[in-house]
Every structure is written in C-alpha cells, then in structure tokens.
C-alpha cells in the first residue's frame, strides 16, 4: 500500500502525518489526530455527520481522501470556538434554539452552516435549507436547526 506524507493546517495548527492511499480525511482526523468531534454515520457520504470545512468549503470528510487534503486548511467542530474558548455564534445559536438533541448530526450541521454563513452572511430560509440538505438529522425535524442558523446570521450581522 502506498504511503503519503501529509502536511495540512487543522484548526489553525500545522499537522503532519503519514497515511495510506485509501485513508479518508475522516479517518485521518479521528484516528490520526484524535479529533473525534467529527462523526461517522455511514462512511459513504449519505448522512453528512462527518462534514468539515476544507479550504473554505463544506465537504463530507468520508468522501475526501486524506492525501487530497495535503497542503490544505481544515476546520472541524473542535476549532469552531473563538479565542478564549468562547462559543462561535453558530454554536451559541444551536444551544439557545434547542437545535441539539442527540447531538450526533450536530458537528456536521455546525460545519455546513458555518460554511454557508462564511460565504453568505444573510441567507434566506430557502438557502439555509439547501445548504443543510446533505446533512441528515433523525431527532429534530430540522425546524430548530434552521432557526438556529437564522439566529446566528442575525447575531453575526449585529456584531459586524
């Protein structure tokens, strides 16, 4: 099996490692770096629980080979909080709106929502729904998740 040396920036820190040619970014984050906040729900891109932000875009990390992320910049749920440990507005909104139940879809939802708000600070409800449509949630019926993204957008707008 081929081995690739990796160097990438994860949550603001330069990380290195060696991975096999078939190692996914999800496996590298969880098993290689111990960043278990990113969840595995299906391993084949159907559920979105493993969503992270790679080079500014939300991706399903089970569908990206770790080697493809070489040289890139990755943000996971562990890197979402602001300096000083303060929650990011999207995290605060998920807590306040009741958007969290079992929590297993939550990290992926947070990353998909963050990628949306980074590129479109004032999305309407239809845009939010499209941005989250690759992320399954079995608990909430999505209502409070969508509301949380709306609230986070409003809060971030106030802070600007």
């Amino acid at each position: 099996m081929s081995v690739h040396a990796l160097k990438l920036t994860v949550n603001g820190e330069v990380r290195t490692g060696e991975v096999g040619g078939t190692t996914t970014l999800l496996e590298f984050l969880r098993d290689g770096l111990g960043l278990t906040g990113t969840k595995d729900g299906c391993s084949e891109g159907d559920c979105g629980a493993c969503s992270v932000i790679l080079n500014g875009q939300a991706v399903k990390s089970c569908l990206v080979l770790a080697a493809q992320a070489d040289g890139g910049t990755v943000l996971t749920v562990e890197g979402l909080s602001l300096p000083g440990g303060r929650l990011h507005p999207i995290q605060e909104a998920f807590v306040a709106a009741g958007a969290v139940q079992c929590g297993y879809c939550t990290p992926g939802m947070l990353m998909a929502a963050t990628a949306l708000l980074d590129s479109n600070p004032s999305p309407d409800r239809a845009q939010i729904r499209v941005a989250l449509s690759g992320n399954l949630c079995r608990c909430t019926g999505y209502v409070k998740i969508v509301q949380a993204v709306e609230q986070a957008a409003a809060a971030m707008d106030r802070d600007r």
Partner: protein
Amino acid sequence: MSPQDLIGGRPTRIDAFDKVTGQALYPADLRVEGMLFGRVLRSPHRHARIRRIDVAGARVLPGVIAAVCGDDIAGPGTYGLVTPDQPVLSRTGGKVRFVGDAVAAVAAESPELADAALDMIEVDYDLLPAVLGTAAALAPGAPLVHEDRSDNVLHSVHLRHGDPAAGFAGADVVVEGHYTTPFVDHAFLQPEGGMAALGADGRVTVWVATQWAAEDLRQIAHALALPAGQLREIVTATGGAFGGREDISVQIVLVLLALKTGRPVKMVYSRPESLVAGTKRHPFEMHYRTGATRAGKLTAMEIRMVANAGAYASTTLAVLNTAVTVATGSYLVPHVAVDAVAAYTNLPVTAAMRGFGSNQPNYAVEMQMSKLADLLGMDPAELRRLNLYRSGSTLHTGQVLGAGVGASRALDSAVAKGAALGLRPGSGRNQGSKRRGVGVACGFKNVGYNLGWDDFSTAVVEAYPDRATVKIGACEVGQGVTTAMAQLAASRLELPLAAIHVETVDTDRVPDSGSSSASRQTFVTGNAVLRAADEASRRLAALGPNPPGSALPIVAEVTYHAPATYAMDPATGQTQSANYSYGYGAQVVEVEVDTGTGEVRVLQAVASHDAGHAINLTQVEGQIEGGFVMSQGYSLLEEYALQDGRPKTTTLATFLMPTVLDAPSEIHAIVIEEPDPEGPYGAKGIGEMTMLPTPGAIGAAIHDATGVWLDDLPMTPERVLRALGSI
C-alpha cells in the same frame, strides 16, 4: 431562574455545550491503550442449520486475538427482552433464522484485521425452507422458525367489547378497508457501538449507547451465566434511539470477547451492519370494518391484525398487546371485536420503535375515519370531534378514562390554527398536475408499561444546602431527560438549575429507573425525582439554617410505582385498567401531489399535542417537530425492503429518510396542557405520540388533493401513480 421559568420554561440543555464543541463521547470515540476491535460474522442465509462451524482459521492470522462462536459460550447463550430466544452467536447444530443473524465474532489488533479474520471462519450451512411472510408462517404445515414450538404463532389476542353484531346492525353505513405497513429501521445517526474491558478485580465494564443499562446487565448475565455483580455498564453519549437501542446489540459479544482476550475490545457497526442486524418496526396487515350512523356516531369496529414478528421474540408480545389497547384510535366505539396475531418469520427481528404498536392501527383507524367522513359528506374534523374520547369514556378494553383527556383540545386547536393558515380539509380539489389537499387526523397512545407490568423507577437525590446531585438510571438518548429531571429536582429543592448535577448512568452508581422508552421517563422517573427531592428538602429544613457538615449530604432514595394496570382477560381482552396514562394529539397537513410523477410534498403542518404539562417547552416542541418529520418519512419514504427475505436497502442512500428539503419549512407545534392528575406537575409523555396522526393526515390530504386513497405505507410515488391509474 424563578420556579415558573424553571418548569414549563426554556432552559437550555445540560448536555448541549459538550455536543456543540465535539467533546461529547459516543462509543466510536472511545479509545484506550491496548484496545482490540471486534467484528461479527453474520448469516447470509434466511434459514439454515449449522452443520459445522470452525473459527480456528481466523485465530491463525497474526494480530487476531480471539475468534468465537456459540460453542465457546458456557451459559445459555441466548437473550431477549421478554423471551430469551435469540442466540448471541451460532452453535454447531443450531440455526440461523434471518439474513444478518450473528454467527461468530472476532477480536483483532485493527478493524482491517478483524474484517480479514471473518473471511477465515468456515461455516457449513444446511439450508432450510424459509418463512418469508406472515401468510406463509400461518399456513398449515409451514416450516417452523422455532422448532421447539408447535407453530409460528408468537402471540395472539382476542378482544370482545359490547355486542359487535348488534353494533353493525345499528349502523347506517359500514366502511371496510385493508391496510399494510412496512418494516422500518430506526436509523439513528450513531450506529450501534460500545466497548468492554476486564478489570484487575475480574469485573467487566461495558460502555455502550443504550436505553436501559440495568436490563442490559440482566441479559448479559443470563446469556453468559455470569453473576450480575461481575458486570458494570456505563452509558456513553447516545446518538438517538427511538426504541432501537432497547434490545441488545453489541453488549454480550463485547463482554464475551473481553473475557476471552483479557483486553479492552471496541466494536462499532458499519451502517450496512446496523441496517441488516438492527431491529425493525413491525409490518402490520390490518383489516378494519367501521360502522356508523348517518349522523356520524361510531357504532362498531371489527378489526383483524397480523403482525410480522420476524425471527425472534424481543418485545413483540407487548407490541401486539399495545396495538390492541389502542386499536380504535382516539375514538369511543361501543361495540368492538379485535383479533390480533403475531407470527414468527425468517425476516428481521421486529421490536420496539417509537409508538410501539400504536402507529399501525392509528393509521388504519384514521384512514377509515376519513373514508367515513367522505361517505357521509361530513367535515372530517367534525366527524372526529363527535367520536373523540373524553373523561369518563369507556374504552374498548373496558377501562374508564379518568381526568386529563386532551383529545378535543388538541383537535380544535390544530383545526383552528390550520384555518388561520388557510388550511381547511375538504376545501376542494385542484386541477392540473400539481394538486394540493389538506388532511386532518388524530393520535392516541399510552404512557409507560402496561397491562399488569409494574412500572417503577428509583431516584436518589444527594442534597447540600446550595447544591444537589441526582442519581437516576434514565438514559439520555437525545430526548432531554437529563435536563428535565434536573429542572424537576431544582424546582423542589429551590436551587438554580446550575446547582443540580445529574450523574452519568453507571450501574455501579445509579439505581434502576427503567428504560428510556414508552414515553415514560418524564412521568415515572419524574415522579421519583420529585418525591426524592421533596424528602431531601424536608430533611434539610429539619437540620436548621446551619446544618453540620457531618449530616451532609442528605441522601434521599425513592422508588415510585405508577398506578397499577392489569392484564387483559384472555377470552375477552377486557381489563380494569390497560394503561395508567395516555397522550393525545391531532395534526393538520397540507400536501402537494404531482400527478405526473406521483411525488407527494408536505407543504405545511400543524401538530397539536397534549403533554399534560410541558416541563421544558423547547424540548417538547423538539419532540413534536422531530416526531412529525420521522412520521412523514414513515408515511411517504421509508421502507426496509427485502426481496425473498434478502435485504435490499442496506445503505442510507436506499433506506430513505427525510432531509431538511423534504420536511415542511414550517411545522406549527402547539402544546396542549390538560394535566394528568398523577403526572409530575401534570406531565404525561410526549415522545411517541407525536408520530401518530401523521400517516392518516397525509393520507387524507392526498385524497383531498386527488380523490384516491393510499392504503399501504409508504405512500410512494409508484403507489400514488397506481392509485391514480397512471401505471
């Protein structure tokens, strides 16, 4: 936070911070030094006898530490919530009974090695004729799924109330319908998983995502013939349950492997394994005859239902009993006959899933009511209102309903909100290829264990003047029980919520509070927590303003027993009290049917549910919204499909559940509070009831839009087109 804000307010979840920061640890996130990885070999056959099983080949691989089958188990090697009839692993001479049955297990240094080891296990099967449906199971001379039984009947119930013949004689109209429902998977986002480790003291600790740790230990102890004291279970963060974690998954195999290897062993199912091996909701086939007067008063119901019990018993007995106790839905019917049977098949194991036997009859009843309203030319809400249960109603089980019946308030509020949104049932059919319609339906289900099962819960409160710890065995599966229980304790100890610590469920440290199922924890454990907090509060007060440190903490332990229920009379199904509490709800749904493609979209929904009293309003709304969308999936999308008993939908790309784009952009959740006199602050249960009206409401809305009835779930585009005569 004032008591008013605390009970019925919107405190945020205690576990939310850990979940939004990625710190909450689910089974797959556990890792310890020297950990091995477990895997299970599963049957590719539907029904076969094991002539020979040889795990030695797997043990030869370097890095494979253990390979075991049922022959390596000293104890009975079987488990099951009601009847222990499911083998943990196969034994020589034993049988496999469905595709996915567990045959053998391995523990290896890496997941890849464990996979490779499975390929080295040799099994010789003698194939047996498979029982692929309930009709085949009940046919004379059918092959026996369990040969220690005389037939494939797992359970049957016969209920007679009033005089059904007279009831039909007094009917002006009779509606007759035949309804079917599919296998459905819980499809919680976190696949089954856990870890077990043998300690220096010879005890084994299991970390697992579950609904009932104490019962898991009882089943592990039985299967492996271990003293219960040798076992300990710690519940991890749990990624949804919905009934699917009430049964054993990884627990017993993990303990077996930990004992064999002496090392920690972790096992996490892949998604296909979760779908193939996990329990399912029971498919039901139901035949309903409903008699009514011209004025719309129900006079009689005759009901036959056949439930597919799958390969093993699990909780099928209780599911079928529950189905019978709610067989007439939310409606008073003076004359009722129910004949229900559950049959073993060589198909997936069916067991608890959110609603527990009430979803299927509720769908059939509501379709019957919609057809009856159509036949009589009555407003469908008015027909329902005329027949809804009220306090003092005598159910078909013979039970008389006490106070706290919110059925009418739920229906009236849902219809009123719908009207305000412009959603009126029967408001006329559209022309063209995109037709909109509105449907209304009700829902009814019991809270808690029923029919003579003692439903109890124990809570311990350890109180200091400025803080307290709550010890309960209630599993947090996402529903929010931890936060609700902290609120209840804080309200009686007169402490801020932040001063209450709820311990993680650890069988060494917390009492048995029963399962997180049957919508029971708020009611049963809630009552235990209130009483324990009250006792702690009294004893603290008795110590005066400056209690000596030696007297602290005050430890109050209370076991609360819910009001008694009684088994059904075997001949008539009658009982003094089938259930100690019920939940009520009603929903109004607008759909758009594409008559070209058969696709049904849910545009708007109103869901009104009687929670008795909302302890945490945000969490109750979350149950209503989540239950609605899960039931929308049940109505329109979801089926665990099999072909000749072999699974077809083994990924989330083929077992379809609603995405955010499928869900309506607005779900108007209405919380009705018609207090239960026995509930904590009047609370009932809410988790399951939220699913019940949806299939009937969607079915009615499709009829409103198109004029056709869909009598089989799910109401797929193909079925819609067939009903329309397009294919």
